[in-house]
C-alpha cells in the first residue's frame, strides 16, 4: 500500500462521489413528479441504440489495425456473433459462441 488506510478510504469515497454524481444527475435534474421537456424524452428514446453502438466501438477501441494480427481475432469473433445471432437469435448462444471462438483465436491461432 502506498497510501495510509485513511487516505485510501478517502480516495475510494472520492471515486464513488464522482461516479455517483454522473449516475444521479439526470434523475435530479428531471425529478419523477415533473414531465421532462420533449427534447429530453426524445433523447431518452433514441440514445439507447446510439449508445449501444458507442459501447461496441468502446470495447474495440484498443484494437490495432496496423499491427499483427491486424484486428483479425476481433473482426472474426464479432462477425461470428452477428452471424450466430441472425441465424439462431439466441442471446446466450451468440455470446458464448463468439467468446469461445475469440479465446481460441487469441490463445491458440494468433498467439
Amino acid at each position: 500500500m502506498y497510501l495510509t488506510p485513511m487516505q485510501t478510504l478517502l480516495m475510494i469515497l472520492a471515486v464513488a462521489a464522482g461516479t455517483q454524481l454522473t449516475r444521479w444527475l439526470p434523475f435530479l435534474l428531471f425529478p419523477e413528479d415533473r414531465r421532462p421537456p420533449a427534447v429530453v424524452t426524445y433523447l431518452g428514446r433514441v440514445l439507447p441504440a446510439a449508445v449501444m453502438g458507442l459501447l461496441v466501438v468502446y470495447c474495440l477501441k484498443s484494437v490495432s489495425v496496423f499491427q499483427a494480427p491486424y484486428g483479425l481475432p476481433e473482426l472474426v469473433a464479432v462477425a461470428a456473433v452477428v452471424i450466430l445471432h441472425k441465424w439462431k437469435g439466441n442471446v446466450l448462444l451468440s455470446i458464448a459462441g463468439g467468446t469461445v471462438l475469440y479465446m481460441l483465436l487469441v490463445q491458440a491461432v494468433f498467439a
Partner: protein
Amino acid sequence: MERTEQMNGIGTQPGRWRLAAKAAFPVTIPVLTGFLCLGMAYGVLMQGKGYGPFWAVLMSAIAFGGSMQFVAITLLTTAFDPVQAFLLSIMVNARHLFYGLSLLEKYRGLGKVRAFLIYTLCDETFSLVSTVDPPLEVAPRDFYLCISLMDYLYWIVGTAIGGILGNFLTFDTTGLDFALTALFVVLFLEQWKKRENRPAGIIGISCAVVSLLVFGPDNLVIPAMVLMTAVLLGGRKTLCT
C-alpha cells in the same frame, strides 16, 4: 381474485421474487462471465499494488465503477489527491448521464428500489434494462431490481475471488472478457431489429469511430457523446417520424 393470484404464486412474496430472478438470471449470464473475469483481474491488480482483498472489495462495493476502478489503481499508487480522483471519475463516467436520461421513464415511480437502481447503474445493467423487456408475469420493478442486484454482486464477488486467490489461478482466461463486447454487439443487434432505431444506431457507431480517429482510444467517450447528441438533436425532425 386474490386467491387465484396466490395459487399462481404471483401475489406471494417468495413466488414473485423467484419468478423475477428466474427471468433476470439468464439475461445476466454474459455479465456474470465478464464481471467475474474483469472483477478478478481488478482484485489481482490491486493485490499486486499491496491493496489486499479488503480494499479491492470495498472499492468495488462503494464506488462500483468498472473502468474507473482500474484508472484509480494508478491514483492509489501516487501522491494522495482525492480532488483529482473525484474530477477524473466524473469524466471517465460521463456516459452515465446518457443512461440516466434514457431511463427516466422506466425508473419512474419505483419507490425505494429506485435509489439502488440508480446507485448501481452501469454500462451492462443499462444495456440490459433498456433492451430486454420483462416477461408479462413479472413486474418491471422486480425485473430491474434483480438485474441490477445480480450485476452488482457479480462484480463484488469477482473482485473478492481475484483478491483472495488470484495468484493460484491456472486456467488461462485470456480473451474471456470478450463476453462483454459480444454482449454489446448482441444488444446492438436487438436494438437494430426495430427499424426506427437504425438511424440512431448508425449515428452512434459513426460518431464513436470519428471520435476514436480524432481523439484516440483514451479520450473517445466524451467527444463521441457530444457529437452524438448534436447529430441526434440536429436530425430530430427526420428521426421523429
